């Protein structure tokens, strides 16, 4: 194990990649979490927005809450999505920032990137792009972003301080981090914290 993390960050990354490769290829498969349109409804996304999305844009969605519930994005804003997965939150962000804004989705999984790029092309979106990378080392210029969003990705990283450090780097002064993630109300036993299988189900 490297550093002071409860699990090996590299091994965890490979586990996560394998799990979300499976979600990208088989979004209606059996997972320990909900996916797709029913999940978006459960998390309180706007019904009109959900209904208007083609299946390809939403079926691999695997978030844990709604990062837009703490505030809508503004027209013209530049946005980075950490762990963009199938692209659903990027598509929501692209609509909110409009033609004058720009959205960069970052994901490490080839299959998710292929899925999100295909969906964006099918929707005719021209104000976003998807880049391959890990969220502990964002492929984004320093101070570029007005807003960083994320949904259910930061908890899958062993080194969260590295992630927040990168968010701080890519945000402009005064920029916002608005993200969704899980938190537990009861302490998880040490043995479970060190069980890499439980990190990503």
């Amino acid at each position, binding site marked *: 194990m490297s550093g002071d993390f409860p699990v090996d960050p590299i091994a965890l990354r490979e586990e996560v990649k394998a799990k979300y490769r499976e979600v990208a290829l088989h979004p209606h498969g059996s997972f320990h979490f909900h996916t797709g349109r029913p999940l978006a409804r459960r998390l309180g996304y706007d019904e009109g927005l959900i209904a208007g999305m083609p299946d390809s844009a939403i079926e691999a969605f695997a978030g844990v*809450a709604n990062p837009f519930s703490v505030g809508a994005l503004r027209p013209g804003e530049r946005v980075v999505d950490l762990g963009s997965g199938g692209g659903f939150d990027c598509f929501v962000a692209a609509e909110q920032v409009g033609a004058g804004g720009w959205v960069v989705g970052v994901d490490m999984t080839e299959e998710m990137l292929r899925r999100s790029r295909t969906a964006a092309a099918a929707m005719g979106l021209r104000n976003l792009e998807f880049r391959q990378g890990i969220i502990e080392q964002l492929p984004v210029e320093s101070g570029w972003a007005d807003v960083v969003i994320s949904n259910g990705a930061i908890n899958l990283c062993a080194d969260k301080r590295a992630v927040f450090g990168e968010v701080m780097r890519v945000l402009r002064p005064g920029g916002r981090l608005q993200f969704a993630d*899980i938190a537990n109300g009861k302490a998880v036993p040490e043995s479970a914290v060190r069980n890499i299988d439980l990190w990503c189900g």
Partner: protein
Amino acid sequence: MLEECGFVDVEIGPPVDAFGGSAGESNARLFEVYGYAFLARKPR
């Protein structure tokens, strides 16, 4: 951790039952795991 990393004006939204009815529900209930939306700012 957000404040330790330098963020300010941290806000947390209400809990969301993200795992209810899923295969992961029992573990989520055991440790009271919910989804939350967070908002934080980088200082000017």
